[in-house]
């Protein structure tokens, strides 16, 4: 309808589109280049350079890198840590938000401020004592320590967000449950949690991806090869002298694939969720 005003549109509109498309190409360029060169042989790379099309799919670089770092193991570690953290942090957030949003406990404003501060504190200001305590407790270089720490860090944000959501929870439903004789514990699990499911699933996905993407604490806590996560394994090998051009490219591709896969699988939830955090 709007286009009726200027049939065919002003010539400028194609220029705007072209500029935006060029920018999109620039943004996607590294993804394309990495993929292109991850499936080339080192000989092809040195003769044809990074822009030439591969003459077939050469998987040796990827396979060799995969075996050398035992990448399946890293995937499993990342998956186990992120999955456990996501679920545990949501449970913790729900318990807190139940007390704050629905129970309206005294001093809830200060409790929220506490969680907000806990969430914004840089990990650098916690890391050495955590490292020291973990060593004392025999939990250094164990996934358990990382799981506990990230559960707490993610729950700080989850509590903050979920308290606002549960603060809006319809009172009539709660009163009806109380009339039916449901105690608080039952009300939480039978009524509040099922009704809040959409928000909770957004949180699970976010916690999973955020934990997957973490680098600093896993770098310090998970030093043995058997415990490393995907970003740590790739990060510490970056620039390694043993890696040639195509193998470096293969390693980058192995980091990209799971991240992009999560994005595609959870796209709808994510685009909805990114804005949940922003609008509060």
């Amino acid at each position, binding site marked *: 309808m709007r*286009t009726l005003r200027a049939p065919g549109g002003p010539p400028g*509109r194609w220029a*705007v*589109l072209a500029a*935006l*498309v060029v920018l*999109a190409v620039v*943004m*996607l360029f*590294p*993804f394309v280049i*990495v993929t292109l060169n991850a499936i080339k042989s080192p000989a092809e*790379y040195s003769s044809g350079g*990074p*822009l030439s099309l591969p003459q077939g799919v050469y998987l040796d670089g990827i396979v060799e890198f995969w075996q050398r770092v035992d990448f399946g193991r890293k995937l499993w570690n990342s998956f186990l840590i992120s999955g456990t953290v996501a679920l545990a942090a949501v449970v913790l957030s729900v*318990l807190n938000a*139940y*007390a*704050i949003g*629905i*129970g*309206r*406990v*005294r001093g809830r404003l200060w409790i929220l401020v*506490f969680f907000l501060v806990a969430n*914004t*504190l*840089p*990990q*650098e*200001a*916690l*890391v*050495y*004592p955590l*490292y020291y*305590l973990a060593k004392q407790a025999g939990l250094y270089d164990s996934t358990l320590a990382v799981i*506990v720490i990230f559960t*707490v*860090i993610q729950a700080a944000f989850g509590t903050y967000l979920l308290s606002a959501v549960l603060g809006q929870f319809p009172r009539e439903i709660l009163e009806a449950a109380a009339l039916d004789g449901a105690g*608080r514990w039952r009300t939480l699990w039978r009524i509040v949690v099922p009704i809040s499911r959409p928000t909770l699933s957004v949180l699970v996905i976010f916690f999973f991806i955020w934990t997957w993407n973490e*680098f*600093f604490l896993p*770098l*310090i806590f998970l030093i043995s090869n058997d415990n490393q996560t*995907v*970003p740590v394994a*790739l*990060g510490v090998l*970056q*620039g390694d002298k043993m890696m040639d*051009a195509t193998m*470096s490219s293969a*390693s*980058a591709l192995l980091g*990209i694939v799971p991240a*992009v896969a999560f994005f595609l699988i959870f796209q709808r939830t994510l685009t909805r969720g990114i*804005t949940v955090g*922003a*609008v509060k």
Partner: protein
Amino acid sequence: MARPARRGGGYWVYLIPSLVLFLVVIVVPFAMNVTTSFTRWSGVGTPTWVGLGNYAKLLRDERFWASFQHNVGLIVAMAVVPTIIGLVLAAALFDYIGRRFGTRTASALRAAYYLPQVLPVAVAGVVWGWMLHPSYGAVNQIFGLKVNWLGDSDIALATVMAVMVWFQLGYPVVIFMAGLQRADPALHEAAEIDGASWWRRFWHITIPQIRPEIFVVLLTCTIAALKVFGPIFVLTRGGPGSATMVPSYFSYLNFFQKADVGYGSAIATVLALIIVVVTFLFLRLQERDS
């Protein structure tokens, strides 16, 4: 069972698990970090109390000041530039491309800008570490250059900043576009009928409508820039020299390589203080604004 609820009374128990965990993971470690910052300690043996010694040393340490200057550069690259470009892109996609070429085109472009954001930031570093490698890296090969992007102390910080713009740009675009969907289209239409140019509408209508989103993006991105560690670790390790040193990497260095834990703790404490202050300033500003 169904006692009439004492307001708030019994709900405290639900906070107990968090109370214990937060005490162990956040409160006690943070208190230990602050205490350690007043000592000289190698990580083993007994710390020696030095009072404000580490902080006095900080004030005289050129690397510390340089690391904060680099942090300012990263705030520009991760918060300021993406917000400005993101505003223009979001507005262009939303009420120009979306209307003239359809929402599918707009969504596809938005997804392209957002894609770098889905990567773990360390993996983004791995990607660019490879692209920018001085001998075999794709960038030098394609453009026939011999630039040592990350190894030349004159340009290393600028290179890292460019990588961070690439990484960060999609986030404001997505947030701002969502904000524009919330905004009232009638205002725009009225202004258009009055003959206001696209830029005037952008400045006087679009931006005021999504002010809350702009605040949130600036706050979260500024904090992310203050905390930045992964890309520095992967791309430059703070070097060459200390050309890309940032406070978080500087504290890491003191903790785990120089065994100067007291000094590292002081750096981390200052960083924490700055981040908390910045957060509260932003929130106050936002409150006053609305």
